[in-house]
């Protein structure tokens, strides 16, 4: 049996009075890539941010239902949110390196979690950049500003930055939507590598990307414009793309809407 990383039960989510997600129940497998697809604005990113409690930062949001990470309720009072976010790393739509050097970007995470030893940090930085397939490109410019890297390199730097704090899960919120095709290719290859060691959950509006990189695919859809998104279908990627059970999934992946 596959190990379950995230167990989501009857999740509802509100922005103020607007209900964005309704009754989402899903098990996400460890060391697999799970993709969330659906039309833009359907709540994919909102769902993703529930998993590391980034929605807490938005005022007037409310959540009901349960989310368990390795059996632990992440919305219970005892959970340390900072520690949760370390365990569940996040890559954003636009690469967002900090305005400091390449090295400092990667060392930032370990530092805030208490690692001060210079040698240890050097090791972590090298290892993380290497895992993010960036080491060869930046090893001679570790101390140049991260913002001088190309967009694709910046996104891989952000991946290295997340890897440096040794997460269990990596959430990717449309990680390739702001970068060029060659860099996208590199990041997709990287996702394939990383799933050996991490559980990866990716939101994408690019269905071909979901088909290429994921093992499982979940289809979210808000059927009414102002209504909440529901989980329409969830299965192995192969089934979703070749033999979906729900008519709406079929319509979406064959490009009839969205």
């Amino acid at each position, binding site marked *: 049996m596959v190990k379950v990383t995230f167990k989501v039960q009857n999740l509802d989510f509100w922005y103020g009075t607007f209900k964005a997600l309704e009754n989402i129940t899903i098990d996400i497998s460890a060391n697999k890539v799970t993709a969330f697809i659906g039309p833009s604005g359907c709540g994919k990113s909102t769902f993703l941010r529930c998993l590391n409690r980034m929605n807490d930062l938005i005022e007037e949001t409310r959540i009901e239902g349960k989310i368990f990470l390795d059996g632990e309720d992440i919305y219970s009072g005892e959970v340390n949110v900072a520690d949760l976010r370390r365990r569940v790393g996040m890559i954003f739509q636009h690469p*967002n390196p900090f305005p400091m050097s390449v090295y400092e970007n990667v060392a930032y995470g370990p530092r805030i979690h208490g690692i001060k030893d210079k040698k240890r940090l050097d090791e972590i930085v090298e290892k993380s950049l290497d895992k993010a397939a960036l080491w060869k490109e930046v090893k001679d410019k570790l101390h140049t500003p991260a913002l001088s890297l190309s967009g694709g390199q910046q996104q891989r730097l952000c991946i290295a930055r997340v890897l440096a704090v040794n997460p269990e899960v990596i959430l990717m919120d449309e990680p390739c939507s702001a970068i060029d095709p060659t860099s996208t290719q590199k990041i997709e290859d990287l996702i394939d590598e990383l799933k050996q060691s991490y559980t990866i959950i990716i939101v994408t509006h690019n269905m071909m990307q979901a088909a290429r990189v994921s093992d499982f695919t979940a289809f979210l859809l808000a059927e009414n414009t102002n209504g909440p998104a529901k989980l329409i279908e969830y299965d192995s990627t192969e089934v979703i793309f070749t033999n979906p059970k729900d008519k709406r999934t079929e319509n979406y992946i064959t490009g009839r809407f969205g």
Partner: protein
Amino acid sequence: MNRRLANQIALLILWISALAVVIILLILILYIFIKGAPALSLKFIFSSPEGIRMKGGIFPTIVATFYLTLLAGIIVSPIAIGGAIYLTEYAHEGKVVKLIRFGADSLASVPSIVFGLFGMAFFVEVLRMGFSMLSGALTLALMILPIVMRATEEAILSVPKSYYMGSYGLGATKWQTIKNIILPAASGRILTGIILGIGRAFGETAAVMFTAGMAINIPIFPTDPGRTMTLHLYLLATEGISLNIAFGTSFLLLLFILGFNLTARLFVRRI
């Protein structure tokens, strides 16, 4: 009247207004330069006034001016930055925050002589600090607090939200994020705010007249009194002691303030 002509006329009027601004500034600077430059010399800058006609230099007033402004800057910076961090990051947008902002903005438009009077009553008299650098600097700090605080708020608000997300996403706490990411990213603009505040304090007369005193001496300790350049200038001119030295002093003041503004711009550019 056809639209083309209206356009030309509007342009002409705007152009004249813009030109007027530049010309007025140039005339002012040129006038001060012509009147003040002859008085300027190394001796003028580095020696003390002598005799009843205040011949010689204005060195003690330069020292007192820098002493007061720097001390005010040192006092105001942590308070202004702390307040701005609280208002932008911790306080919930609501009546209290609005009240604090309204208070700060109102404080910024209070005439400086009122600050001077308050400084005299409170720092000089009640707290028994006497006419001193400390009384003067505290009064100036109060006066420029809203300027520096609002500038710092703007600086913090201009930091992209994605930096916060990146840091929180790595498991940083709020304070770690502010200290390690947000403040460094905002530091250029914060520094600009501080320099502009200091620039304002530098040219201040009324607020220091009642608090730092008028004694012409080189202040060493914060408890020493001292006369600032602007106050010296004011006394020289009103008492008709020496217009030459007054213009020399104002020319030097202009140079320093120009220096402040250029430095402030430098930090803005760097961003």
